[in-house]
């Protein structure tokens, strides 16, 4: 079993739809959770991060973490064609007082159709 699992898609939605992207993980030491967005032929860019369970909102984006279920989600409201990209969940384990290297999920490819 991979440490981080993510449905690769592709996911295709109409403009304005609500998008839900999800990851599951197996390592309970993961304490820091991130979402990176990667446009075609570009490097990934950090979109959101959170250290704790619960929700974090930033504009049209909401990140949700459920540590008891080892499940994280990214919701995109009022999706736009410019949101078309690959979304990679990422996480880092707490080792003592320091965070370990970032582990990425395999990414979900999203297309928002005008």
């Amino acid at each position, binding site marked *: 079993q991979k440490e981080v699992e993510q449905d690769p898609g592709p996911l295709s939605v109409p403009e304005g739809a609500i998008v839900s992207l999800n990851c599951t993980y197996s390592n309970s030491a993961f304490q820091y959770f991130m979402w990176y967005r990667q446009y075609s032929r570009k*490097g990934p860019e950090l979109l959101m991060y959170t250290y704790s369970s619960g929700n974090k909102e930033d504009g049209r984006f909401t990140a949700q973490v459920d540590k008891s279920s080892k499940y994280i989600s990214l919701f995109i409201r009022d999706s736009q064609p410019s949101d078309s990209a690959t979304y990679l969940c990422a996480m880092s384990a707490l080792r003592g007082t320091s965070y370990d290297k970032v582990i990425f999920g395999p990414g979900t490819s999203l297309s928002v159709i005008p």
Partner: protein
Amino acid sequence: DTAVSQTPKYLVTQMGNDKSIKCEQNLGHDTMYWYKQDSKKFLKIMFSYNNKELIINETVPNRFSPKSPDKAHLNLHINSLELGDSAVYFCASSQAYSGNLSGELFFGEGSRLTVL
């Protein structure tokens, strides 16, 4: 100004050849990384250097050798290239406070390697 730049962007070469990819960051970060992204978009860490010192060395064949002449540069040399080495290689940097490696990663645009 490009924060993390890597060259070349594209590399097409024959099996058995040796090639290098260069990376430079102008963000003043202490930590640099090489990631490999396969055709399924899976991004996997290969190496990490902190202030020119190797701190992460994942299970990567010995044919891959990173070199960090200073904290702003991290190069990757690959010997005896194989078909399975075809991938996009990303350089990244982050500011690692007190040994934390979870800081935001800033990626370059990638170097697409095709081995024929």
